[in-house]
């Protein structure tokens, strides 16, 4: 194990190297660009034998190139940001439908601004990938390696997107522990391509081809079930990582912070969760028992975890760093749907903030905590969803 003070984007590249990726096809876009630079340096140095680095002419191509590489059995990687991700929209669906275990870093960049929010990755919810949001550089490195293990699990066989905020994390330097290569090798075995796992294919050697005489809905059901399996597999993989490397991120799906004994909880994703932790500490100092649940996996959504947490708290305040105009925040809707059938009705209030890179400060998260606490104590929220 070694240490280095590195930026978030370098942590991604180092994670890829530890995972011994075979192919990276990338097209640069701010704030993702430096990942492609670090990867090209790794390629030029020759320190990762058998690693091919491909300069794609756009994101549509980069996604298709790694799709083909994965299909022939090469562990592959790509990365992008904001508009680049939107340009990838079409082939992303193919990667998932072909059940290829690709890992992609999405360095968040808003769609109305170059500054970060989660509108880029949130807009890809229907593409059939798993979506994990991470908070700091260490978590990026660890999650990049773990994402391959999750994606390549037989019960999943789906691409995984690892999302983190541009600028404030992609370019921020922090101390990062780099695990030893042999330990990572023991954790993550080489990628073995599987023969088709889809039923009723015309020819089992083809990918994404026709479905023969079978039920055309069957692949959808299998895809859906595989995504739901994420809840189990993510927890297993993160538990194994914790045992091996001594670093844990809650149970992998969520990372609770001072939830025990709390009267209410707020939720946050990505870098905002780190800032929220500082806010939670201050709230407890003031005698306000507010906990934080950092949501790591948005897709699949940690349904079981929140159904359990809701039993013990008076209200949940959900922070969304994206807004679907006319439909509010996606995390808010998932939370309400998750708790709808529960016997105990736990109020869920929504907060939308940090859009187009607007800074979210410790005081902002404290206010969210206080407003949620008021609702937990029986008060009425000013509005079901509020702009921060």
């Amino acid at each position: 194990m070694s240490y280095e003070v590195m930026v978030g984007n370098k942590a991604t590249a180092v994670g890829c190297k530890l995972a011994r990726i075979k192919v990276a096809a990338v097209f640069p876009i701010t704030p993702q660009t430096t990942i492609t630079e670090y990867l090209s340096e790794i390629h030029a140095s020759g320190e990762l034998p058998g690693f091919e680095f491909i300069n794609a002419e756009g994101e549509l191509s980069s996604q298709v190139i790694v799709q083909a590489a994965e299909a022939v059995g090469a562990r592959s990687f790509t990365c992008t940001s904001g508009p680049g991700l939107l340009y990838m929209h079409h082939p992303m669906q193919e990667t998932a439908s072909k059940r290829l275990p690709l890992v992609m870093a999405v360095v968040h960049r808003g769609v109305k601004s170059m500054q970060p929010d989660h509108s880029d990755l949130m807009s890809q919810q229907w593409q059939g990938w798993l979506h994990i949001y991470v908070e700091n550089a260490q978590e990026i490195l660890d999650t990049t390696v773990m994402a391959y293990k999750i994606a390549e699990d037989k019960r999943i066989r789906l691409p995984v997107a690892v999302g983190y905020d541009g600028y404030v994390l992609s370019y921020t330097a922090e101390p990062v522990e780099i695990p030893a290569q042999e330990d990572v090798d023991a954790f993550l075995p080489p990628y073995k391509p599987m023969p088709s796992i889809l039923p009723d294919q015309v020819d089992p050697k083809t990918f994404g081809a026709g479905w023969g005489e079978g039920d055309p809905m069957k692949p959808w059901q299998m895809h859906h079930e595989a995504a739901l399996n994420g809840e189990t597999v993510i927890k297993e993989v993160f538990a194994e990582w914790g045992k091996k490397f001594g670093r844990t991120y809650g149970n992998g799906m969520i990372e609770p912070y001072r939830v025990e004994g709390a009267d209410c909880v707020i939720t946050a994703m990505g870098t905002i969760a780190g800032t929220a932790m500082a806010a939670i500490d201050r709230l407890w100092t003031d005698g306000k028992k507010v906990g934080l649940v950092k949501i790591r996996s948005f897709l699949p959504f940690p349904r079981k975890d929140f159904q359990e947490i809701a039993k013990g708290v008076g209200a949940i305040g959900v922070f969304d760093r994206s807004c679907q105009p006319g439909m509010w925040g996606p995390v808010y809707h998932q939370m309400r749907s998750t708790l709808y059938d529960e016997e105990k009705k736990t109020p869920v209030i929504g907060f939308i903030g940090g859009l187009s890179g607007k800074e979210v400060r410790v005081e902002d998260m404290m206010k969210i905590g206080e407003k949620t606490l008021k609702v937990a104590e029986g008060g009425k929220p000013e509005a079901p969803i509020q702009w921060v």
Partner: protein
Amino acid sequence: MHGRGGQGAVTASRIIATAAYEEGKYSQAIPMYGTERRGAPLTAYVRIDKVRVRERELVHNPNYSLCFDPLIGLQQAVANDLKPGGKVLLNAPYAPEKSELAGDIEIATVDATSIALETLGRPITNTALLGAFSKATGVVSLESIEKAIKKYFPGRLGDMNIAAVRKSYEKVSPWVPAKNKVAPKIQVDLNVGGYGTLKDVSSWRVFYPEVNEEKCIGCKSCWIFCPEAALEWKANNKPAMIDRACKGCGVCANECPVKAIEMKRVAGA
């Protein structure tokens, strides 16, 4: 940390974060990017703590403010919002008593531009302020800064930068309480972001181009290559600087085939 694109403020923030980690502390270095370009004012932030730093808002009330640019250091913005008794370290060719910065603060100065020109041959002032930072604040040791610099600049470049660090360690002034206590009402906003040649960037210059019209052959190379369209063409077929638009980058002097343009240091910069 206040500086300009090209002075290495972001690298300096990472060197401090690395040096702190060398000493067993956790750290975080956040750069604030806008539409960056050489010469544009920028800020970077460093947090140092005993435990892993998890909050990620910018640092709004710092203990220390470092300014890498002598002209930015004239602006009150670099001394605003410090914690009471906060300290401002300026790259300035004058004693701290002369600074007009106001507040419940202490000021120290070091002529980092001269040190950088002597040791590196270029006005890249980041490392030429870091030695002063170590000596004046004791936040990180000189040894840790040198170790960190070797990670960022291997080989000869590292040695040159370490020479700059050592010189600034020796030359930094003592801390002096600010003579002015109340900040001026009218202040210059440091955030001159965005594109466009209509913006006044004259305050960015550490150097300005001086044209020797006798040597000039009127080839217009300077005029073509100027990235800011900051040269006007006069009736006598010679170039002249547009004061508002020139940021002092020196591309014109570099492109001139007959060396008719010389970059002169702005007085006080």
